[in-house]
């Protein structure tokens, strides 16, 4: 499966269905199955930007980067769950949360915002709503790249993000403030720029290159929906 080539709606359907199934199916087997699928998805080609961060990489290594991101993001949840619950409950909830985290991380890596906008506009959605959704998904890599630039700048000034806890905390403080302030500042300018480029409520945008939506993918999306409904029905009735 190549995440980057699937229709954006299919990617969204998969990323939505997996967490839904994780919570609907009986624990821990249901959560284990969905978590395994979600984690395997993070290894699929196209799930990660290339080394330059600008293209879609068919390589294996970037996939590992996405897997690592998913695992590292999910790990703190396991820790907190273990502090609050017994082991069986921790495993049950932890697997579900891992499914949610891995699905989202995979979606962010695999879904190209421009394709999502084109697909939504072609499907008759408002362009501003489509942009809002796509911009939310693209915010993570944008902030990551900005954080990397700020860390590089701090390094040039002699502040290393490595070392003991005290040094790391100092580096974190030096990173957080400019990251938040620059992001807030950019929001204003971006709003002005988008307005002047015609992205205003109520527009009817012309789709330039809507991604193809093969019948098999449409069928797969319906199948995912039916699978969720069926699992829900079996669980509670």
């Amino acid at each position, binding site marked *: 499966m190549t995440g980057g080539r699937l229709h954006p709606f299919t990617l969204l359907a998969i990323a939505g269905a997996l967490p839904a199934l994780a919570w609907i199916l009986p624990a821990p087997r249901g959560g284990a199955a969905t978590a395994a699928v979600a984690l395997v998805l993070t290894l699929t080609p196209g799930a990660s930007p290339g080394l*330059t*961060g*600008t*293209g879609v990489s068919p390589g294996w290594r970037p996939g590992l980067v996405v897997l690592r991101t998913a695992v590292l993001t999910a790990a703190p949840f396991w820790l907190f769950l273990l502090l609050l619950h017994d082991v069986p409950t921790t495993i049950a909830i932890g697997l579900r949360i891992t499914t949610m985290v891995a699905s989202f991380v995979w979606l962010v890596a695999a879904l*190209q*915002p*421009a394709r999502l*906008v084109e697909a939504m506009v072609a499907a008759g959605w408002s*362009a501003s709503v489509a*942009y809002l959704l*796509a*911009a939310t998904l*693209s915010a993570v890599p*944008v902030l990551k790249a900005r954080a990397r630039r700020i860390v590089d700048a701090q390094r040039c000034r002699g502040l290393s993000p490595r070392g003991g806890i005290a040094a790391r905390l100092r580096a974190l403080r030096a990173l957080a403030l400019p990251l938040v302030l620059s992001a807030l500042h*950019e929001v*204003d*300018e*971006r*709003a*002005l*720029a*988008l*307005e*002047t*480029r*015609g*992205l*205003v409520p109520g*527009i*009817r*945008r*012309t*789709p*330039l*290159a809507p991604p193809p939506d093969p019948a098999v993918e449409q069928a797969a999306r319906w199948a995912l929906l039916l699978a969720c409904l069926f699992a829900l029905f079996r669980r509670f009735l």
Partner: protein
Amino acid sequence: MRSLTLEGASFWYPATESPALREVSLEVAQGEVVALVGALGAGASTLLLVAADLAPRVTGGRLTGSVARRDRSGIVLPTPWTQASGMAFTVWDEVAFGPANLGWPTHEIARQVDRALEQLELVPLALRDPASLSGGELQRVIIASILAMDPGLVLFDEPAAELDAEAARALWRLIRLQAKEGKAVLLATSALDALPDVADRVVWLEDGAVRAVGTPELLADVAACDAGLGTSVASVWRASGLPGPYPLTVAHALQRWR
């Protein structure tokens, strides 16, 4: 024919007591290039936002006086990174983002985009990823993006800030061409040396108010030079202690010298 008319326009940003613009009256006609000059904080960028109908509609704040726009406007802001849509795989797609939002038919979008790319000499970069461009290249892409929307009133805020000397010269030629095609151009810039060849009129802003309006000769005015708003030639002439009126350009200086 007037494209933009401001009459006694004052503007306050949100949560500020003193206005960023004070009783500004200004007209920009079709086919005319008007340059806004002034020190930092003089109000040139704010005036452009008001002219573009972005202030107070998007920025918030309060506007008094009247602003009449006859044409659709497009504004080029000074930082290209925040103006990229972030939704384009290629430079062509980036330039097409605005025209597509206008709902134009595909063939018209393609025509305007190709034309804008040619005008900005961006055809060789058409298939490049916008994220891989330099600041100057991206600024040219943003300018092309605005021109591709075919606005009747084009507003530039420090458009040459990211450009090298050659690209800046090409931009000034393009601005004159836009005026020749009948567009109204309002330009805020600190590149004062370019204005004698680019601007039809110069508006000197000071503390949010219009201090003087005139031809580019204004930039050789003694008071303008005292305020740091003279061209390089006028400033050098002044610094060397030669008497006024100061020459505006090298050609003027040669005439005076002989």
